[in-house]
């Protein structure tokens, strides 16, 4: 039986952000923007959605008078990602 894929993760940019963040301890907004090739506005919206879902932690701070946004995956986000990949595999195993 197929389980529904997590709608929070099942969009290209949000999935890209989470996939990037599971591989590192933490990353700055500009780094994620560069790696995902997203626009700042779109990335900002998707980061907020992931934060609201509790999948990532977002820390806004100032460094040398410049604003900086640091993103980090949460245990909940990691769990959601694992479930997403598991469900994805069940789809792939049946050739979908």
């Amino acid at each position, binding site marked *: 039986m197929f389980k529904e894929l997590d709608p929070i993760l099942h969009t290209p940019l949000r999935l890209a952000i989470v996939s990037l963040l599971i*591989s590192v301890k933490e*990353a700055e907004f500009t780094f994620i923007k560069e790696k995902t090739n997203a626009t700042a506005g779109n990335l900002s919206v998707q980061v907020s959605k992931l934060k609201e879902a509790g999948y990532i932690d977002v820390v806004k701070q100032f460094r040398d008078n410049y604003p900086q946004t640091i993103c980090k995956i949460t245990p909940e986000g990691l769990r959601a990602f694992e479930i997403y990949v598991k469900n994805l595999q069940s789809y792939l195993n049946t050739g979908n």
Partner: protein
Amino acid sequence: MSSADSLALIESMINKAKNQFSENGHLYLLWGWVVFICSLGQYLGMRILKIQESYYVWILTWVAVIYMIIYLVKNKKKRRVVTYTDELLGAIWIAFSIVMCLSGFILGQTMGTRFYELLNPIYLTIYGMPTFISGVVLKFRPLKTGAAVCWVLAVLSTFIPVTEHLLLIAIAMVAAWIIPGYLLKQRYNNQAVN
């Protein structure tokens, strides 16, 4: 987005993160050159210039420590991403510094003025450990080779006079930190270009 698309996206993002080298070789070069200059300086001072106090050249390491602290603080501010590899390697090099200080202290306490007979063979052995682990973690063969050279020199040091030990330290620095340091710098710069 199909399942295959999702999987391809996940794979591509993980690879992008995985290929992120934050190691630019700067501290390998700093310490490689400092220890090389100090060991060779002391050796030449003692053997050729016959200056007994030539060990004062090691004061240079304190200047290097101050520079390293400033560099690390500045670098931390500039860093846009922290990988688990960065965290692990940081811990390994901190442990290495502590082991170096403690072994020097213990040798001094237990062997008195004869501490010098064991100091460099033990230091050569210790140099190899973080260098080898870094080589494995960074998947960087020159570091693993450098570590092997340190360990071979540590064994060799037991067969040659104590007065020549400093030369082995200088050779170890070239093999373990200076050459890999330049190669790491090259790899880091290539990453910035690509």
